[in-house]
């Protein structure tokens, strides 16, 4: 997934978590980059009409930006589910985050042939939990959290 798509996906998720524009700081934290780098990329994406940026408030995806963000999120969901269900990776969130930059959408489409992704993907992605809500349920993580 290219860098622009990773940013768009992050804006999409931070907007959900913050219930409003995605702040540069929150994006930088989520992506593991410096605020200066995040700011620079936000400017580029705004120039391309993929998001609107309001100083001191943050970034909001345009319709085109949201479409691309949803596609990127679906690719990410394939990767998380593949790691969790096929390779039995316990820390699938962290590994998916590390690998997403190297995995192209065409590769994810191929991996998608052997996993059980839900038809409502990526709407079922839980931004707070950073995973598909169905996957969290299947893995019994929700119960584990409730029991803590």
């Amino acid at each position, binding site marked *: 997934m290219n860098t622009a798509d990773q940013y768009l996906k992050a804006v999409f998720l931070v907007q959900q978590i913050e219930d409003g524009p995605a702040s540069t700081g929150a994006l930088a934290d989520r992506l593991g980059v410096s605020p200066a780098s995040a700011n620079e990329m936000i400017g580029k994406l705004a120039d391309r009409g993929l998001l609107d940026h309001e100083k001191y408030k943050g970034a909001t995806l345009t319709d085109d930006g949201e479409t691309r963000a949803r596609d990127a999120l679906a690719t990410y969901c394939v990767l998380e589910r593949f790691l969790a269900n096929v390779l039995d990776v316990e820390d699938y969130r962290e590994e998916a985050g*590390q690998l997403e*930059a*190297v*995995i*192209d959408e*065409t*590769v994810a489409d*191929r991996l998608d*042939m*052997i996993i059980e992704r839900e038809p409502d993907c990526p709407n079922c992605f839980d931004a707070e939990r950073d995973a598909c809500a169905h996957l969290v349920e299947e893995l019994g993580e929700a119960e584990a959290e409730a029991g803590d």
Partner: protein
Amino acid sequence: MSVAPRVDSDGQLARLLQIGIVLEEVVEARAYQHYQRLPAEERDERIEALLAGAREESAEHRERLEALEADLDGDAEPAVDVADLVREHYSRTDPEDFDGVLYDQLNGEETAYKFYDDLIDAIEASDARFGIDRDALLATLRDIRAAEAEGVEAVAELMESPQTEADT
């Protein structure tokens, strides 16, 4: 996480090799399913030879990736066998005819090529010291990538050529 397409550790490299192994297994298993299920009227010696060749080549690539993974991590568990998963999901995604089978094969080879190309770039972009020899790793991956490129050409040629008399 990292937004840069770069392999930074043995763990990431091992995981990417596992993904390559699975991609090869998917090509291998789907070629077998195609071969088994292609309707009699769509059968063609050339496509059967192509699918048999694709299976052999994917098996060889898989073994080379498994050897790299084993060298990287002596305790690595055997790669998962995805043949059952492919079989389970095949009916949902099976191509219906000669053209569909070739298109799926082309897609599999192109995807594998893209995967190795990105993986090679990501290794070259990294300064990390891996538990296996970097030159040997890159040589193997470049070799496999070249074979995938040849595979793409072979399928494309077959798609462009007229069908044999037996099919017409």
